[in-house]
């Protein structure tokens, strides 16, 4: 009827539909946890509950609650597909009944434990394959996964925990999935474990204990966090699919270059860059921070090296690990690196050479399928500073002074025991060990040596000489010397380790905080707000974000740092060059703030400028800042893409609406017009005797057809001549019927137009709510004649301030809706009552009820139930809702037990009704 006349929207709509068809594959949402017991299943059920409430058809395919009460309770809300029992080696095991789920065709299926291995004899060996099949059938799936089961992370987890990981899921399964992190602070998890709330299948208690060590959990948590944070969201994937795939990497290669403070690293970095260019693949520059701290000079060189890498386009990562080789391999596996580039050791002392050799050998042994490429670095002109043991001895002078002081004091305090020289020896040993807890390695070694000499000089006979008399004492002294050094060394190392652990935990916590807050950010302003807040909390620094507007950068109003013209120009440079600039960098280092571009591969969104109070910026801090900037950029990207998608959706929606409007209106208007035309022409053709034969109904004067409902049209048939009076009456009734319908449609259209233009201003006045019901029923008397009405009104007036006309229209539309969708003869129940300071008007029918998937759209414009009878524009309920809401009320619908639907209008009784003295 309505030929498409404008080609543009049509082609666009077609493209959209095509895209929609392409998207038909079910979506996968994965609830990722760091380990068992964090509450993934619970989180999944909670999310599913929200979907259920939104009217989606959700079923449980397979959920393992392990008998936890809260989880069990939550699971009972869903209908469950019975599991399949499979006999295997005399044991009956249960699996998800894949065929039953497919046959049931829910909109969303819940399938726990993505990594699960099916019992032999099942269709697929792995559950993730079952899930793929569900998705192929267009069913959305929620599932759960521990980070240890992700193939690329399994090795890392094994290294962290020592536990063998057998069940893994290929990373590709997660590619187009949405990941949601289920997080629990490690301490709480350990507590849950002790309370027996964590279920782990057939594992030895010792293994569990080992697995759930807090340090393990911290590492696992970081792993899970990174997995989710780095995961490219669905929006982005969708975008990449629709946009041209420009910039997408051509090969599966990924290079990693190990970067240290050595000046030899720089040529290595450049070499890797050339190789990455040739292979057209991404590359990483990784620095593994050991337990020892670097000298300031080394720190500066390292920063410079990493900056170089960054400028050359590498993704720069820093990690902390006691073991350099292990740290490198961990990152390599996490990032699916195919090739590691290392410098060939040259020069340096013998110790350095041996260490480098060991390091390379270990890398080769443990790298598995990752290739190693060892490049001979040209000797750089920079004089190389000694590395190796050197940094160990560097510590502050104060610590040495402290060590010396303590040893001296101990010597004085031990004087009373001078007669038994072994006692001061043990006291010294104790003090050295204790010192190791407070000072660095150098001072500890110094204290060990000093104490040995002091002991010898002041206590070992002959006293006041360094000479040792007896062999016993010589052995004693020698042993003491070694024990003091080793003990001090060991304690210092443990402390360094725990320091590194603590630093990592802090970083993880900060990163987690930011990721979580950012995940909730729905707009650019929120992203900025969260980012600035986190920087303030973590770095105690003021910061500013600028966004481009026209051809210059404009500071965001929420900024905590005021940018001068000069700083703005640095931001501008960072934005254009997509490089870090300002303080702590090689680009415009004279600036007061550090300027980091907020960018993803797709585009640069703006610049983050941070005014750090410190004199220098430790690498880990810099890394964390960069991660912050990257995370913020990712979210900005997501926000922007989502807005674009929303725009497209809105456009398609308005297109759909105007189409629906045209279709519905042309049909709705033409049908009654056709009826009137044909009935009127038929009347004109025939001569009727007896004007008075037309009989009128008492109540309304309307012509009543001999039987209710529209009549079959028989214009032009010979019966007209046979029973002219009767026929005439029928034709007239037909015209009236069509008229009433036409009047209703026009009324509805005008009402919708009024609502859309926001011109509905309620005129509130005191009314008796019962009167609204009575008047509406009286006016709809004719239409409702085929449906018995059960009226339930209280005997006293229900006084409420409302707009009588609007309320009456809303109620009338609910009644018309009820009689349109229920067969004649079924009752319609109408009730008015007051309940907790509001008035409820309900209309209940015994029709087919409302399909769950239609429920969320039932009040939408032009939306009609899939199997609704002909006639009706899909506007009645929209108007009812609009008119009720205009008076501050609300309207809800639910299916009734025993069939049918109940619509409820709730109007607030905001004012107490005045008291009217009835007796007067």
């Amino acid at each position: 009827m309505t030929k498409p006349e404008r080609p543009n929207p049509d082609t666009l709509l077609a493209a959209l539909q095509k895209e929609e068809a392409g998207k038909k594959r079910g979506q996968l949402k994965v609830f990722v946890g760091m380990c068992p017991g964090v509450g993934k299943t619970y989180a999944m059920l909670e999310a599913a509950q929200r979907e259920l409430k939104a009217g989606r058809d959700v079923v449980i395919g397979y959920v393992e609650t392990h008998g936890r009460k809260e989880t069990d309770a939550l699971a009972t809300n869903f209908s469950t597909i019975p599991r399949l029992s499979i006999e295997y080696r005399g044991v009956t095991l249960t699996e998800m009944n894949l065929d039953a789920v497919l046959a049931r065709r829910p909109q969303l299926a819940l399938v726990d434990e993505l990594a699960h291995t099916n019992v032999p004899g099942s269709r697929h060996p792995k559950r993730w394959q079952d899930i793929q099949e569900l998705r192929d059938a267009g069913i959305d799936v929620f599932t759960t996964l521990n980070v240890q089961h992700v193939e690329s992370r399994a090795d890392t987890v094994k290294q962290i925990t020592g536990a063998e990981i057998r069940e893994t899921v290929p990373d590709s399964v997660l590619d187009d999935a949405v990941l949601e992190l289920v997080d629990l602070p490690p301490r709480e998890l350990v507590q849950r474990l002790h309370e027996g709330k964590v279920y782990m299948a057939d594992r030895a208690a010792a293994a569990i204990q080992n697995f759930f060590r807090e340090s393990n959990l911290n590492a696992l948590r970081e792993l899970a966090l990174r997995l989710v944070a780095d995961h490219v969201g669905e929006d982005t994937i969708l975008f990449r699919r629709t946009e041209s795939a420009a910039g997408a990497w051509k090969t599966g290669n990924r290079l990693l270059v190990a970067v240290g403070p050595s000046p030899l690293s720089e040529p290595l970095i450049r070499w890797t860059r050339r190789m990455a260019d040739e292979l057209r693949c991404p590359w990483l520059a990784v620095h593994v921070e050991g337990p020892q701290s670097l000298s300031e000079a080394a720190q500066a060189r390292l920063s410079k090296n990493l900056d170089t890498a960054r400028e050359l386009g590498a993704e720069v990562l820093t990690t902390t690990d006691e073991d350099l080789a292990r740290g490198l391999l961990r990152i390599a596996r996490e990032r699916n690196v195919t090739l590691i580039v290392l410098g060939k050791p040259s020069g340096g002392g013998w110790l350095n050479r041996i260490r480098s050799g060991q390091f390379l050998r270990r890398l080769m042994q443990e790298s598995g399928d990752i290739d190693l490429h060892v490049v001979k670095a040209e000797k750089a002109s920079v004089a190389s500073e000694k590395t190796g043991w050197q940094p160990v001895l560097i510590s502050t002078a104060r610590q040495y002074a402290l060590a010396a002081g303590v040893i001296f004091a101990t010597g004085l305090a031990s004087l009373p025991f001078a007669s038994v020289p072994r006692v001061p020896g043990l006291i010294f040993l104790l003090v050295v060990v204790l010192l190791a807890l407070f000072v660095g390695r150098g001072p500890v070694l110094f204290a060990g040596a000093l104490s040995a000499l002091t002991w010898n000089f002041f206590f070992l006979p002959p006293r006041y000489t360094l000479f040792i008399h007896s062999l016993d004492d010589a052995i004693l002294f020698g042993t003491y010397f070694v024990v003091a050094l080793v003990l001090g060394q060991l304690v210092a190392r443990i402390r360094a380790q725990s320091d590194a652990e603590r630093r990592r935990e802090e970083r993880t916590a900060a990163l987690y905080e930011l990721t979580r807050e950012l995940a909730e950010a729905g707009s650019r302003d929120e992203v900025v707000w969260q980012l600035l807040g986190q920087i303030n909390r973590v770095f105690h620094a003021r910061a500013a974000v600028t966004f481009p507007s026209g051809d210059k950068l404009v500071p965001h109003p929420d900024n905590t740092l005021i940018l001068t013209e000069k700083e703005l120009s640095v931001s501008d440079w960072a934005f254009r060059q997509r490089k870090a600039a300002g303080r702590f960098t090689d680009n415009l280092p004279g600036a007061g703030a550090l300027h980091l571009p907020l960018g993803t591969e797709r585009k640069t969104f703006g610049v983050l400028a941070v005014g750090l109070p410190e004199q220098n910026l430790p690498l880990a801090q810099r890394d964390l800042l960069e991660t912050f900037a990257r995370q913020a950029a990712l979210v900005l990207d997501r926000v922007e893409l989502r807005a674009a998608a929303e725009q497209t959706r809105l456009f398609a929606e308005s297109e759909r609406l105007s189409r629906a409007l045209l279709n519905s209106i042309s049909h709705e208007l033409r049908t009654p017009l056709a009826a009137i035309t044909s009935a009127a022409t038929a009347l004109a053709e025939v001569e009727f005797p007896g004007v008075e034969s037309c009989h009128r109904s008492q109540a309304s004067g309307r012509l009543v057809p001999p039987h209710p409902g529209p009549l079959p049209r028989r214009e032009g048939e010979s019966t007209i001549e046979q029973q002219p009076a009767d026929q005439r009456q029928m034709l007239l009734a037909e015209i009236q019927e069509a008229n009433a319908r036409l009047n209703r449609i026009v009324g509805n259209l005008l009402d919708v137009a009024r609502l859309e233009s926001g011109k509905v201003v309620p005129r509130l006045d005191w009314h008796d709510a019962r009167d609204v019901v009575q008047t509406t029923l009286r006016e709809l008397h004719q239409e409702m004649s085929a449906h018995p009405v059960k009226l339930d009104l209280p005997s006293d007036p229900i006084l409420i301030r409302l707009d009588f006309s609007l309320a009456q229209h809303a109620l009338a539309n609910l009644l018309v809706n009820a009689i349109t969708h229920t067969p004649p003869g079924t009752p319609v129940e109408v009730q008015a009552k007051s309940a907790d300071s509001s008035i409820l008007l309900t209309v209940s029918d015994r029709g087919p009820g409302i399909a769950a998937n239609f429920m969320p759209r039932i009040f939408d414009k032009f939306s009609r139930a899939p199997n609704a009878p002909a006639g009706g524009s899909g506007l009645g309920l929209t108007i009812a809702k609009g008119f009720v809401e205009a008076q501050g009320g609300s309207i809800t619908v639910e299916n009734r037990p025993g069939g049918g639907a109940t619509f409820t209008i709730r109007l607030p009784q905001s004012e107490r009704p005045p008291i009217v003295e009835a007796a007067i």
Partner: protein
Amino acid sequence: MSTETKPRSTALVIDDEPQIRRLLRVTLEANGYRVFDAATGQDGLVEAAQRKPDVILLDLGLPDLDGVQVLKRIREWSCAPVIILSVRDQEEEKVAALDSGADDYVTKPFNSAELLARLRAALRHAQPQGADAIFRAGNLEVDLSKRLVFKNGAEVKLTPIEYSLLRLLVTHAGKVLTHRQLLTEVWGEKSVEQSHYLRVHFAHLREKLESNPSAPELILTEPAVGYRLVCR
């Protein structure tokens, strides 16, 4: 049901739509009226002055003058009943017209039987009141001279306010009475805002007089306008 057989009443139709004027002319003439019409407010005023019609049908949406203005100017010198022709969503103008002296209203699209009933009621009230002190409608009987009310022959006790309201309705039987008119007549000018008085007392009246109070057939609510007592 009845054709007017007395001396023919004259009706003036003031409406700018030619089709409405034609249809009303046909309908009214078929029912014994002499019909004049006018397409504008100005013409309508002239016609009204010249023809001195027994009843006037006035459209609210005229091209030149506001319908309420026309009504007020007619009311300056004539007390012929005026029936307002309005469309939906003109509640405020409708009420304003009724409060300014219009006798009744019909909403377009209206059905002819209803219009004729309104015309008859309006004409009846325009005639000097006869000695007819007994009013009957359905099961209701009101004896205005003795101030007695009967339902199915049994006397019904009304409070003074209820009786005042009922008396008003009875003397204007078949006509709509606006909230303002009812409130002013019964409680006085000061109480025109106290619409809740009406709700409560009308609820009680229905309780006492209607055979089925939850589906009133005697005392009808005119949405957003007022009340009407059915006369039949």
